[in-house]
């Protein structure tokens, strides 16, 4: 039960941690944590965005194509406030959009690969159970 609960909440927790890291510079400004102020948190956030690949690929592995699409859309939703209101750098929306498209495609491909792996495993198992040819798909002996 505990393991299942942990597995279910893994993606939301990952997204929360990534979001915290993504907006950590703004959080430092808001909370006035001057001891934590580093240039890294105030530069172009292309590197910070890469961290979102972890939940996207994990969701694709667990939730297949639908999981990948959902987490990619949620990640884009998290990126939007920075693109609209925070980022002083040019083409913020374009960079975020490009990252989202590539991450989404990667996630969908991982999901499809997982589906294919599972289908093969299922076929191998059925072949092992019914070793005679022709009995696997239609249940007929040819």
């Amino acid at each position: 039960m505990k393991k299942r609960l942990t597995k279910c909440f893994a993606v939301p927790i990952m997204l929360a941690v990534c979001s915290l890291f993504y907006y950590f510079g703004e959080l430092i400004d808001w909370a006035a944590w001057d001891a934590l102020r580093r240039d890294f948190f105030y530069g172009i956030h292309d590197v910070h965005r890469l961290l979102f690949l972890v939940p996207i690929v994990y969701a694709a592995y667990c939730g297949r194509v639908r999981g990948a699409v959902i987490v990619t859309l949620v990640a884009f939703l998290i990126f939007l406030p920075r693109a609209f209101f925070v980022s002083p750098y040019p083409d913020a929306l374009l960079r975020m959009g490009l990252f989202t498209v590539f991450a989404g495609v990667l996630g969908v491909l991982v999901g499809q690969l997982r589906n294919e792996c599972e289908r093969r495993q299922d076929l191998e198992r059925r072949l092992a159970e019914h070793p005679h040819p022709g009995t696997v798909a239609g249940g007929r002996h040819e």
Partner: protein
Amino acid sequence: MSSDWLLRIVLFSVIHWALAGLMMTDLLARRRVLGGRKTPWLALVMLVPGFGSLAYLLFHPDILHPDHDADRPRAGRDRR
């Protein structure tokens, strides 16, 4: 209204409705939801842009784990 703001609103709307569509599909296929009634969740997902879908996702995280989804009828549990 400037074209910049128009672009922002349109983009946000597209993301909202894409997410809401996915959440509503899951909501309609699900047997049980948190709280027992589907209508408030449907209203939340549709009427609260972005955050409604995030709240639904937070309270029904098994949407991302179809292997372990016991609340769904068998036909709806197929790989997508």
